[in-house]
């Protein structure tokens, strides 16, 4: 076993666990769930078609004529200079991709600092960025990643295979980051340096979709010197060193993180229009949205329905809403009573007021969800219907259960604990709503916990029912880690409900090994049906990550990544609003002076 004795402290664990959430500790007024897991090792969630060139990014807002989407017209001439002020909902604990878990705000700050190895074009196909080529072995059991030559980190060191390896090894030995990676790699010989710029990754199962995993946090490459230093001095997690177009110049936690143009950027600085990017934390998202109206912010990224609604109502502000960003749901812990019994899970599901959730919590800014996929997506199984709002069906199940397990019941109701994080107005509202539906069949004890405790207790299985946000990745391969049996046990399990299904594991790994899209679709639809039948998740709505943008902010969706090596000018237009993540390097402000 490998451990880094100098680093693996309890505090470290806390910090990283905390980062499983999308919002910083004290935030709370998030639109949906107290805790939201982000797909750590995953990749581009190429929310297909989300932003095609016709520019209709306005899903779910058809009923709202006030909302319009701004797409800069190609004739617009970029303006150089200015500061882009971006508002996000939560702070991140740190910006070291190998030890801090990246949620949306971390990606907003991180992408400009680090270039990813791979990223996605607007059609959802991956392309190499820092990488030059990605070459699988014939059996897809290993991949050779070759990085471009001559790229320097902000500290002047060079990007090479050794740096890649340092990043990977740091991540996989990190107590938390490793959780999701480890199951895919052998214990020994996980990577090999092939030549100065090529690193080979060895896998335990065939994987045809390996590069997508290097499009997000794991694909962000930090300077090896920096990683070594950060291992010794954790405060350096606040001062990351990457290769990206912008350099971190100031970071005032819980307030603002400031980036300035990297004048030595390897792709040149001609297209880096903005002098400066300031990312502000505003845990009160509706206020953040208002700050667009008061011209204190240029862009606000939010998943809060109130903020979305606010932004929609502000003149001179457009919203870019993404409904494929994940799902809001409640889940049940199948490893302990009462929800180890499917009758209890069914009863809870039936008694859930999903309609109320749509009306009161989502406020119709996002549609009801039946499964982990939006109906527009090809992976969706249209036959799967999430049950709810049928309390009459709950009664007999509860009676039945209580007859069998009287010790879990009182007054003919099942005793349960509803755990949620807070303090948060929205969370409380959700709990109130859920309780209104459930209380006829369940004796509910509320357990409000600070967010960190909430996450730890959830991760360690000390919970019965929690609300959560997850899924939403386009590529099914990204969901494996949340569903496979390998992560259902252990002190910390990423398969939160601890529901292990051998058949599901087979299906998951089958799709990983194939490039046959039809087969993969069939598998995922089967998995959705299984999940529905297992009654482990109660889906409420699809999440809606919204970019609210001042009209003078241009080119948010026209940004490009590097084209194939040797054809630098043929850059590739990037995927826009990827679960609330975005780049800003090609953005300009129309009125920048």
């Amino acid at each position, binding site marked *: 076993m490998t451990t880094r004795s100098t680093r693996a402290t309890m505090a470290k664990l806390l910090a990283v666990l905390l980062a499983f959430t999308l919002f910083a500790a004290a935030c709370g007024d998030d639109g949906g769930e107290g805790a939201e897991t982000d797909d750590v090792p995953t990749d581009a969630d190429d929310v297909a078609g989300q932003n095609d060139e016709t520019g209709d990014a306005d899903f779910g807002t058809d009923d709202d004529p006030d909302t319009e989407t701004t797409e800069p017209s190609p004739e617009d001439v970029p303006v150089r200079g200015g500061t882009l002020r971006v508002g996000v909902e939560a702070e991140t604990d740190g910006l070291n991709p190998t030890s801090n878990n990246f949620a949306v705000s971390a990606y907003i700050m991180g992408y400009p600092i680090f270039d990813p190895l791979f990223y996605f074009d607007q059609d959802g196909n991956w392309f190499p960025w820092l990488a030059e080529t990605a070459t699988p072995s014939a059996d897809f059991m290993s991949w050779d990643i070759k990085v471009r030559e001559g790229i320097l980190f902000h500290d002047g060191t060079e990007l090479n295979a050794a740096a890649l390896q340092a990043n990977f090894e740091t991540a996989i030995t990190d107590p938390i980051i490793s959780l999701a990676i480890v199951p895919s790699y052998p214990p020994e010989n996980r990577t090999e340096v092939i030549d100065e710029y090529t690193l080979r990754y060895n896998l335990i199962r065939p994987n045809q979709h390996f590069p997508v995993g290097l499009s997000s946090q794991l694909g962000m490459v930090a300077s090896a010197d920096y990683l070594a230093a950060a291992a010794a001095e954790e405060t350096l997690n606040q001062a990351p060193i990457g290769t990206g177009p912008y350099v971190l110049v100031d970071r005032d936690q819980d307030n603002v993180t400031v980036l300035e143009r990297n004048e030595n950027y390897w792709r040149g600085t001609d297209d880096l229009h903005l002098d400066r990017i300031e990312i502000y934390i505003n845990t009160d998202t509706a206020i953040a949205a208002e700050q667009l109206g008061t011209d204190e912010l240029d862009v606000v990224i939010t998943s809060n329905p*109130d903020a979305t609604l606010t932004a929609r109502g502000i003149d001179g502000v457009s919203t870019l809403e993404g409904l494929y960003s994940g799902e809001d749901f409640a889940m049940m812990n199948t490893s302990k009573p009462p929800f180890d019994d499917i009758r209890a899970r069914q009863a809870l599901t039936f008694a859930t007021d999903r309609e109320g959730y749509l009306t009161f919590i989502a406020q119709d800014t996002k549609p009801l969800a039946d499964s982990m996929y939006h109906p527009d997506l090809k992976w969706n199984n249209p036959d799967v219907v999430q049950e709810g709002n049928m309390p009459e069906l709950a009664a007999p199940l509860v009676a039945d259960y209580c007859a069998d397990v009287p010790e879990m019941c009182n007054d003919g109701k099942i005793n349960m604990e509803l755990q949620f994080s807070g303090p948060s107005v929205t969370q409380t509202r959700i709990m109130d709503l859920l309780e209104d539906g459930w209380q006829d069949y369940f004796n509910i004890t509320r357990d409000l916990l600070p967010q960190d405790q909430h996450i730890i207790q959830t991760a360690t299985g000390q919970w019965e029912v929690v609300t959560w946000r997850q899924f939403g990745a386009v590529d099914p391969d990204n969901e494996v880690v949340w569903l496979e049996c390998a992560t259902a046990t252990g002190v910390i399990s990423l398969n939160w409900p601890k529901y292990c299904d051998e058949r599901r594991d087979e299906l998951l790994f089958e799709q990983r090994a194939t490039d046959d899209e039809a087969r993969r679709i069939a598998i995922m639809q089967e998995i959705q049906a299984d999940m529905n039948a297992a009654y482990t998740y109660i889906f409420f709505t699809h999440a809606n990550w919204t970019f609210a943008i001042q009209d003078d902010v241009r080119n948010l969706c026209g940004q490009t990544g590097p084209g194939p090596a040797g054809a630098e000018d043929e850059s590739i237009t990037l995927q826009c609003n990827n679960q609330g993540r975005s780049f800003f390097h090609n953005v300009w402000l129309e009125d920048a002076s």
Partner: protein
Amino acid sequence: MSDMDAETTIVGADVDEMPDDAVEKELGIGFWVCIGWLATIGLVALLAPWLPVTSDGAQGGPREAPSMSHWFGTDANGRSVFDLTILGARTSLAVGLFAIIFGMVVGGSLGIVAGYFKGKVDAVIGFIFFSLLSFPQLVLALLIVNAFDQVSLFTVAITLGILAVAPVGRLARAATLVFAEREFVLAAKVIGAKHFRIIIRELLPNVLIPMAALGLLGMGVAIVAEGGLAFLGLSVDGGESWGITINDGRQSRDLQENPWVAMFPIGVMFLTILSLNFAGDRVREYFDVRETAF
């Protein structure tokens, strides 16, 4: 006694030369209006279980404007703000009342004992008060509330009660010091009354009045403090209080489009605190207690 009859037939307040002191003090109509409001709120809060109010389930759509069916409109979850305000009064008033009673009993006892016995007792108790005051109040509340797993009405009330101990105690101590110097206390000593009797019979009735005045003000402070905790999300779990409801409706979009959610409870809270402040001030003035800061 030759003059006795004449003497005793003219009994009344002395008229001093400067008539400022001769002004017969009255509590005034304002005081009774305030008491009336407090009584109404208190009564409604007390009777809430038998009134047709509930916080369960949606009674209307989200954020409906005030109407005949929902006088104060509805909140984001479709609950009647009127009902929430009444149910919130239960929490807020209970917390305020309990906190200040706790403060008066504990702080008052300590303060009187300190002021009466002076010396070392006073030093120790004074130190406790000073230490308690050295914590910023809400921070102390935060720490206490945080130490509990489940925040109940009782937790909040106890927490705010602990906060009230030092201010009430210091007032009681100061008042006791003043009264303990008065000759009627010496007279009681000379008569041979025991300490306990002197404290209960001679000091308490006098100290109680400034304490009551402060108590009314303090109850307002406790109610606001509960609101502050609610704002930080640390008030009663799953309960209703004014602070919780206000916090619920405080976002700018709410203030703009459905201000009733926050404004009605703010209004009721404001009137209640105003009444407490005003009534407390009247009591203070009526009994000629010097103004103190809580």
